[in-house]
């Protein structure tokens, strides 16, 4: 379990943010989780509906890539980026798998943030 959570958060980034933002850091993480919850459920919804709106999928994966990257959730950002690239390259065969992976990593990442920074969910 420890190995799984090791690379979820880039603590260098969060340290920098903490130092810079101080208490506002927690507001940012809250916003990240709010946004992440929203995007992750939208992604799931898109897959459930049969993957016919590629543009929305690209936009969602792009936004989550950016948001997660900027708060130090680099693994999540990375796999979002991969989905975005795949969609751009019009390879639609493994999309459901990608989305499931994002959901899973997002969930872990979110829990890790809540745990490490002692944020009430």
């Amino acid at each position: 379990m420890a190995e799984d959570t090791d690379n979820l958060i880039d603590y260098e980034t969060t340290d920098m943010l903490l130092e810079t933002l101080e208490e506002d850091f927690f507001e940012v993480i809250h916003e990240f989780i709010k946004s992440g919850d929203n995007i992750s459920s939208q992604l799931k919804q898109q897959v459930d509906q049969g993957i016919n709106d590629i543009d929305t999928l690209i936009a969602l994966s792009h936004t989550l890539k950016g948001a997660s990257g900027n708060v130090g959730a680099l693994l999540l950002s990375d796999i979002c980026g991969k989905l975005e690239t795949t969609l751009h390259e019009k390879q639609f065969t493994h999309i459901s798998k990608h989305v499931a992976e994002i959901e899973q990593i997002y969930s872990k990442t979110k829990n890790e943030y809540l745990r490490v920074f002692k944020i009430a969910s």
Partner: protein
Amino acid sequence: MSHHTQLPTMTETPILIIDDDNVTRLTLKKILHKQGYHVEEANSGEGGLAILEHYIPHLILLDVMMPGINGFETCRLIRNNFSYNETPIIMLTGLNDVASVDDAFIAGANDFITKPINWPLLVKRVLYAIRDRDIQIELAENEARLQHSQRIAKLAYWQMDLQNQEINLSDVFYEQFPTKHISANTFADYIQLIHPDDRDLLQNKLTELYKTKQKIEFDHRIKLDYLDYTFHLYAEAVLDQNNDVQALRGTLQNITQQRNAEALIEHQMYHDDLTGLPNKKQLVNELNKLLARKESDTHLTATVAIGLKRFSEINDSLGHQSADRLLKCFADRLNSLSGIEIAGRYEAQTFVVLINNLNGLDLLKSALDNMQQHLLTPYVVDKQEIFVDIRMGISIFPIEEGNSNSLISNALLALNNAKESINDKTCFHSPEMNQQAVRIRAIETHIRLALENDQLHLFYQPQIDLSSRKLIGAEALVRLELDDNDWMSPIDFIPVAEETGLIIPMGYWIIETACKQIRTWLDCGVEELRIGINLSAKQFSDPNLSTTLDNAVYKYRLPSHCIDLEITESVALDDLDQTINILQRFKQRGYTISMDDFGTGYSSLSSIHLLPIDILKIDRAFIKDIGRNGEHGAMAKTIINMSHNLNLSVIAEGAENEDHIEFLKANHCNEVQGFYYSRPLSADQFLEYYKQYINNESCIIIPNSIASAQ
């Protein structure tokens, strides 16, 4: 302990964030806010553009990928639609997205930051970008200020490439001309604009610069549409690594206005404002030039000074403006005279004309006649016909030696003579006239110095009652002391003082000194004597006379009958009503009034009785020959009788011997004044004389040796 230098806090510096990602936007906002920036945010390109309608940020952080119009398009729209292009735009791009970076540049972005964002670095990038913006703005402002200054100074920049002779002239150069159709792209084009007379100068100067590599500056003219523009050109060489001249560059300043103003000032310096004729300075210059050319020439040059007679009367009757117009007409006519070298206005109503190359005095005579005829033809000013009268004074070179100044002043002297002469309206200058003028100037100087240096003295000539031989009073006589106990005769200096107006200050000095002296004598126990003070014509008409006199009498606490004011016939009868007025005022104050030098002027006997005078003084001319050559003094006798009939007391002046005294006694003359009793005495001598008189109980005859001065 931090080793970092404290960076400035960006108090309220406005920043706009445009990003659809709430997390990134919030993070950016919070971080920048902590740095002191004022942040506005938009979650789309459209939203950002709407904010920019009313908000001018110093920096825009712009995400690339957004729903709706994307970052590139937003960037382009900002650059195209808003005037403040100095606002830097930093685009937020993916780390591996090189194509985005290029697109951002093309769209007009200034910089990019890759995601995931390195937050501490972002803060520094923002700081740098804003500083760049401030520098850009300052630079732009300086540039604008510089351009503005150059526009005001009419200062253009130019550079010429020597390889292809192409010339680059800044806009300010073209702005100097009203026409828009000129351009100079090569040196050959520029040369075409230059005034033909200045083309060689320009070529030579630039060649000199090319050879010497030393900066040069000079003026040259541009000729365009028949107008000349003067430009001051500054040029220097641009050298390459081998120290060879690669290009020439410099500035071109339009100094036409300055040159025109200088020319105007120059013109005004040498010309008369009213008539436009050359003024005194220019006349002297022109005459100098003429004389310089004449070295081997035997022809005559006449300097003719022309004065308008009775101009002040014309001024009074027509008014100042019409009189000026008359002067202008007169000047125009003078200037249009044929055969003259130059005509100028010397001063007020005095003009000077130079006539050159005269082959003898006959020609001059006809030139003067012609001039006179031309100038005397009546003038029409403001619909009135005006007749003028002129006088002319002439000096001739080389008959007279001298320089331009002396020729002009000699002509003016001759003019003065012509003005005073009853018969001659035109006078030629003579050496005697010149000597006389020099002498008068010397005397004038003496008088001025005497007034300043206390070299004026009053002498007092006793006046004695003939029947009682009592000392009644004295006439105060002014004397001018030269150096070394030498004295100038009043016959010499009084007329000059009259002419120069110095008689006024001198007269007041006499009043003050005489009154002070009377007070001194009274304080020494001298009884109240009557002291005669001579009033000149100028002083008599001076409005301050009465006040000055009253002040002095009051100041020295004198009984007013001690003051005897002596006026001459010509003063008294010049304006009889006025004289009666003034004299009555003096009489009311208790002053005694005497008529001096009676019998020598143009007395109208019928007027004498109208004047409120007390004493008639018979002029010495009627006394001096009595007893000599059988002269019986008929005139003196008549004057004495007439005076008595008019109830006037009589004083005979110039009583010098026993015969005079006997005659005057026999004819009942009241008083005498003359060498028989005493020459004029200094104040101290007079006091001595008075003491002796008191001791003897009558006036004595004193030896001439006591009185040293006349």
